[in-house]
């Protein structure tokens, strides 16, 4: 049971201030980045008109997401497609990493997920300012009445909370359930199926939801 609360921290002393780094999350994020780089290297090496396996998978994913972004953003989709695609692949590989023994998902840590949500938030608002102009952007907060201003601000901030805590809660909850149930059945027969369900199924759906929500926030910022 102690896996749940076990921490692996690096404490760095800089000019009298203590900085705590979550070492497990950092190392796992590096592994994820390595896996993605390896996959992309495999996919783009000897790229040909008749695609080989890795290239085929990469092209399938890219085309599916290109269709989604084109559909919901429209003519500006070219500049937002890389962001959505990168978010999706990063979150997907992160969620899948929990299936590998001795490794854990970096998305299990709120410190990984919250900045990812924040990126989408900042991009959406920057887009909104760029498309509508600063005056209309500010005016959007006072719709439909003047009194609604605090509600609108809270609604915008709540988007970041909900998008990041959704991913964190799903992955963390899955990990805790795997540990607890494995303990209950004395690591007999059940854990691999649980790992597969929470790592593969829930992980894929949550990665898709995360990318789709980022896309939706951006397209809302453009079209409203």
């Amino acid at each position, binding site marked *: 049971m102690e896996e749940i609360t076990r921490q692996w921290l690096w404490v760095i002393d800089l000019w009298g201030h203590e900085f705590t780094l979550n070492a497990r999350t950092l190392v796992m994020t590096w592994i994820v980045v390595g896996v993605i780089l390896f996959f992309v290297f495999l996919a783009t090496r000897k790229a040909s008109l008749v695609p080989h396996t890795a290239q085929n998978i990469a092209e399938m994913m890219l085309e599916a997401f290109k269709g989604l972004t084109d559909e919901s953003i429209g003519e500006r989709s070219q500049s937002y497609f890389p962001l959505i695609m990168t978010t999706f692949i990063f979150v997907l590989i992160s969620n899948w990493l929990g299936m590998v023994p001795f490794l854990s998902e970096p998305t299990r840590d709120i410190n990984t997920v919250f900045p990812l949500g924040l990126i989408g938030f900042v991009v959406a608002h920057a887009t909104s300012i760029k498309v509508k102009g600063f005056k209309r952007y500010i005016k959007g907060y006072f719709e439909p009445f003047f009194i609604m201003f605090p509600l609108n601000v809270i609604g915008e901030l*709540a988007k970041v*909370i*909900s998008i990041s*805590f*959704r991913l964190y809660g799903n992955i963390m909850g899955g990990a805790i359930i795997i540990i607890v149930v494995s303990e209950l059945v004395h690591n007999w027969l059940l854990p691999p199926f649980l790992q597969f369900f929470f790592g593969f199924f829930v992980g894929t759906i949550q990665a898709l939801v995360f990318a*789709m929500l980022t896309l*939706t926030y951006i397209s809302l910022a453009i079209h409203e």
Partner: protein
Amino acid sequence: MFKRVFYTMTMVAMAAPAFAADASVGTGMIALAAGLAIAIAAAFGALGQGRAAATALEGIARNPAASGKLTTPMIIGLALIESLVIYALVIAFIILGKI
């Protein structure tokens, strides 16, 4: 039925101070509050999500060719319903922080 539930809840609330010899009962109540917060939110969120999924499936059953077009809006809708449950999760974390 509601009367009985209310009665039971008052019984629980009344019974708590009866053996409140130390502070541990107070922390127990805080833990109970966190658990109830996420439990109620999850129950009703699941009801709403079930309705959404059922309607989407009905649409797909009538017109199987539309399944590709229905899936994405359905997932977004489910995510938006789910976000209220996630606020409850955040509140449960905040309550747990008080222990």
